[in-house]
């Protein structure tokens, strides 16, 4: 494999293979607490951290992350404050922002994505994930990301056909976000069969693949990695801890450990030469 990429995200995944990518919603329940949670995840072994910048119409999210977004919006989270938080974070794990396209368009005048990307780069973010931006509409944002050295990560869905797969894989940067199953984000009790199929289809593409949507336990992580993934993405399971645990900081850190350990269990024994 090509280790000589200039993508910090891709490099991080390769170096920490199998990677744990942790998502939480920024500002849930406050940006101050988000800082502590990010640091906890970093300590727990998350290799990449996705921060959700809340948008009022989160059409790709299940109930857990919807609720987190609502809490964040009610707390008054704004893009400006979000970027300030990010700029002040010093984690080992590179950070990505996950948000909806309208938030990106409105950061400057004239519905132009460039100002958002420029600010994201300035704040030290390494990549962007936009669940409502398919490859076809991504031209302007990709251009801005390239100009500022950010990875724009695309999602591959179970319904993505082979034709579109090529164009997505060509465009995605950092890694390919493999959607484990149809539907919205949210912790599930098992690993979908679609995951295995998707990973098999993606095998030929050189870029790392990380699987998300429904991953909640170490054993899932193990199974997914053993099916060929380079990383697992965990979101709702962490957001649940924030909402429900008495000590979210400790809970997040230990959950990250469990997941990372699970992922590592999934690595196939190297074949005897």
């Amino acid at each position, binding site marked *: 494999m090509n280790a000589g990429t200039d993508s910090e995200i891709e490099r991080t995944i390769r170096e920490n293979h199998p990677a744990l990518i942790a998502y939480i919603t920024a500002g849930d329940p406050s940006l101050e607490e988000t800082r502590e949670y990010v640091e906890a995840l970093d300590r727990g072994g998350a290799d990449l951290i996705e921060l959700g910048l809340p*948008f*009022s*119409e*989160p*059409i*790709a*999210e*299940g*109930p857990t992350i*919807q609720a987190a977004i*609502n809490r964040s*919006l009610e707390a008054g989270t*704004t*893009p400006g404050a979000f970027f300030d938080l990010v700029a002040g974070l010093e984690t080992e794990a590179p950070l990505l922002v996950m948000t*909806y*396209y*309208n*938030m*990106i*368009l*409105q*950061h400057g005048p*004239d*519905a132009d994505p460039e100002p958002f990307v420029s600010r994201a780069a300035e704040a030290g973010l390494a990549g962007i994930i936009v*669940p*409502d*931006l*398919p*490859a*076809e*509409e991504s031209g302007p944002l990709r251009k801005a990301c390239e100009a500022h050295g950010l990875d724009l990560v*695309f*999602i*591959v*869905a*179970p*319904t*993505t*056909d082979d034709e*579109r797969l090529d164009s*997505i894989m060509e465009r995605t940067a950092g890694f390919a976000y493999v*959607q484990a199953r*149809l*539907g*919205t984000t949210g912790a599930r009790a098992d690993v979908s069969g679609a995951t295995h199929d998707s990973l098999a289809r993606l095998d030929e593409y050189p870029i790392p693949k990380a699987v998300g949507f429904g991953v909640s336990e170490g054993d899932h992580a193990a199974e997914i990695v053993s099916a060929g993934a380079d990383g697992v993405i965990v979101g709702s399971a962490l957001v649940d801890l924030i909402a429900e645990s008495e000590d979210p900081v400790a809970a997040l850190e230990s959950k990250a450990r469990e997941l990372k350990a699970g992922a590592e269990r999934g690595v196939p024994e190297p074949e005897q030469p």
Partner: protein
Amino acid sequence: MSEATFGEYGGQYVPEALMPALAELEDAYERYVRNNEEGFMHEFRERMADFGGRPTPLQRADRLSERYDREIYLKREDLLHGGAHKLNNALGQVLLAKYMGKERIIAETGAGQHGTATAMAAAHLDMPCEIYMGRTDVNRQRPNVYRMRMNGAEVTPVEAGRGTLKEAINATMRDWATTVENTHYVIGSVVGPHPFPTMVRDFQSVIGREARDQIREKAGRLPDSVLACAGGGSNTMGSFHAFVPDSVEQRSAKDSSGQRPRDGVSLYAVEAGGSSLEIDEEEGLAPNSATLSTGTDGVLHGAMTKLLQSTDGQIMESHSVSAGLDYAGVGPELSHLVAEGRVTPASVGDDAALEAFHRLSRLEGIIPALESAHALGYLERVAGPDAGEYDVEADLGDLVVVTVSGRGDKDLETVLEETEKRDIEAAPDVEVFGQ
């Protein structure tokens, strides 16, 4: 293939998982709707006639004509089965889903008009159907909930957010993202990702096509202007589409027989001005849904269009006394036609709409939907006896078509309540008779 955008508006801003479904839909739309494969359009038109009651009349409004001292014609979509223009689209999409081999229908609804139309169409075509409706709307639009249930549809209350249309759309999109392989999402207006805006417009364009033929038949020429209320804009685009080519420029190129309108056909999209056109950024509240007049460009529910949003990009809670106009976005084609200058955006507030509701009921014996009352309210603002008092200038001309997009039976309670709070001209005394 059909264009995915209208100038800078439109597009397909949806999760990757839905993109193949949009491609499949686009393909089906091309084949069945545009190329009439398997006689789709024939069946659609026949069902709209026999089940839906098309054509709807274009009626000269005698007393409005007198009041406004010009010829006023009403396009009577209120007479369509279900009581609004919504069926044109719902039946088209459910039938298309059937041709596509889909096994299930989902739809969002706000006030319940699109939901009831979809439930009726699904019952008629024997398709299982689930309607998402915000909790607040479920509670305040009971009769429509019951109508849907009686037509055999499931109605699923959406508890998220403020429990209105926006949340219902989000929930339906989520269902679709899960069930996209066997399910068709019947979007209720000319909004959403391509090909919805184009396809819904095509299904609704029968309104303007009929009206155009009817006015030539009745008045001997094209109208000077066409007025239609705009929420998402399906009634507007349906009313305007056939007239879009009848612009000043395009028509003056043709021969100048007496048959053509004075200066081409002017098109007025009348939005809900609500209680004010000001926005409360702090609260995330726009006390109107005058998206075309006051909105800014952005992406919502799959399309780039005009939106009511905060400077950060959060979508505003919109407001109108008429639930069917109460939406923070608008169809991308309409945004484009406004940007181009072909369509003039206008807005009429809650009070003027209530007045117009009572005025049409009393003068013409037609109780209009509160949505439709906005278009009628604009007529009053521009051409009524007190027109001078308002800062509204528009040259409607001598021959005006107004689309009455629906009937107002559904609005009685709201109108009674809202009328009581205000001092509404033309309102009857609606005291509740003692028991």
